[in-house]
């Protein structure tokens, strides 16, 4: 196997890691801010893909505008769910959040199946991105490079926002000590809803990016949710940096695994997770006090 080939496969890993990073980031944001483990994250990813499809079918919205509009639409839907349903169990054991979002997943996935049918809905790579780029060591699909770029940019923006901006600081403070923050006059409820909407929008964005190259069907988020959980745990629950790093790293690891021993490719993430938790219980970048 030549170094050029391995380098090309690493790019494949970055592309698949791009999705994992966005999804893990969204999940971490939601857990960090709401202490809810959002089981519906896979369903939201699926909604993002379907929103893109229906936007194209019914409203003739092309791909680039969909990249912005679909996550916003799904994010708003997420905020409604948070305000109307999830808020009722705020303050409870995170387990209830997991269970409620698990139930919501069943409902959402089956409603979409009723609407769109169980087989795929057609969506292709936009013509402007369907060429290949000469990267010297390989000829590589332009669309994949686009996905990598979008993901890196979005992750960087979110990281900056959460770690460095004033609003991000407020949100972080609201998580750690909501009472005090409210006493200081900040509307924590609205911050929480916004954070949930943002986390959901990130997952939906991953769905939009997935639509051209993945079969758009109601169950497309089904397995991806457990991989996302594993990645978030590896990176460290609640850690933005951890989610992004673990997302890209595991994307690469999974792809390289697929090169050498394909049957184990998808189980690799779980094996790594078990090892990481055994050695560093809070994950690679997690803080030990976030362990309960």
């Amino acid at each position, binding site marked *: 196997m030549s170094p050029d080939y391995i380098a090309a496969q690493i790019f494949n890993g970055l592309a698949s890691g791009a999705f994992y990073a966005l999804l893990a980031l969204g999940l971490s944001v939601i857990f960090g801010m709401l202490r809810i483990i959002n089981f519906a994250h896979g369903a939201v990813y699926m909604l993002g893909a379907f929103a893109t499809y229906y936007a194209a079918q019914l409203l003739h919205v092309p791909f680039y505008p969909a990249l912005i509009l679909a996550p916003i639409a799904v994010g708003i839907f997420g905020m409604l769910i948070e305000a109307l349903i999830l808020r009722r169990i705020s303050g409870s054991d995170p387990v209830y959040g997991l*269970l409620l979002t698990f139930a919501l997943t*069943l409902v959402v996935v089956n409603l979409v199946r009723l609407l769109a049918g169980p087989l795929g809905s057609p969506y292709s790579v936009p013509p402007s991105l369907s060429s290949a780029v000469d990267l010297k060591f390989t000829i590589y699909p332009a669309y994949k490079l686009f996905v990598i770029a979008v993901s890196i940019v979005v992750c960087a923006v979110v990281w900056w926002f959460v770690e460095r901006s004033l609003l991000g600081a407020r949100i972080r403070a609201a998580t750690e000590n909501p009472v005090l923050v409210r006493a200081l006059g900040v509307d924590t409820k609205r911050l929480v809803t916004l954070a949930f909407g943002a986390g959901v929008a990130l997952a939906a964005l991953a769905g939009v990016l997935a639509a051209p190259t993945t079969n758009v069907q109601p169950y497309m988020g089904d397995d991806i949710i457990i991989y996302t959980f594993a990645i978030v745990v590896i990176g460290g629950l609640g850690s933005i940096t951890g989610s992004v790093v673990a997302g890209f790293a595991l994307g690469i690891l999974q792809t390289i695994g697929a090169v050498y021993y394909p*049957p184990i490719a*998808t189980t690799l993430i779980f094996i790594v*997770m078990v090892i990481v938790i055994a050695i560093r219980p809070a994950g690679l970048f997690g803080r030990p006090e976030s*362990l309960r």
Partner: protein
Amino acid sequence: MRPLPIVLVVLGLIALVLPKVIYPLVAIDVLCFALFAIALDLLFGFAGLLSFGQAMFWGGSGYVAAMLVQRAHIDAVLAIAIAVVYATALAFAVGLVSVRRSGIYFAMITLAIAQIEYFVAVQLTSFTGGENGFPMDSRGLFLGRHVDGDVPYYFLVLTVLVVCLALAFRLVNSPFGVALTAIAQNEQRAIALGYRVHRFKLAVFVIAGALSGLAGALFALGNHLAGLEMLDWHTSGTVVMMTILGGASTLVGPIIGAGLYENLSYFVSKTPIGAQTDLVMGLIFAVCVLSFRRGIAGRLLSLSWRKTST
């Protein structure tokens, strides 16, 4: 007026007539899931450990029992016993790794290990039949006798369930059970009081694993089939739903939850909206988690208390 004996009597009456009023094979499934859910309740309702990988015991033991009866032609009782030993050993090994964590981390480790077991089962196609499943010609001989009729098998499983339920009650009301509840409520305090917390958690995880394995073996033999879905994480999720729906930390709640889920699925599948079972169950479950978190049994059992804490 104590509600628990009344609930038990009502459940007992329903259990006695169940195979006459619904299709016996479904009744058998109800009992097996009930035992499975009781096991999860011990783990989650009493010890506070949410496992999202119980399917590894249910499915693993199911396959072991099915393969032993179908291929090795050994007595079904012995096959079930070996299947339970398998589950116990697996639970011990998994427990050693996982009980040191809690909350979401514990859930994730159990899920991950269950996925690894699933992968192994798919790889060993010649052994397990892979995705085609492992059908059985007959349930095998139970201490030399045939129990191929559905109704006799139902009562066999019912007996096992009643015995296990009684043992579970004894367990939670024993010093061991009380210590578990104390650990679940405040682990630091329990440690300060000198309890070897991890040993307790490991013990309850092993017991829950063994019971789940027993339930799975009975289910596989009951259905003449061990299938990959027994190892699928959706099954782990289903049993969690049943337990919460019925009411965690009540032991009878899981029975109600299993009964409700299986009956509702069966009932809905006979109606024109039959294909939407998951949708209906999802809605019911969501309503349940939102409105009464202690589940049906939790509410029923708390009715006699003057001060109802919501």
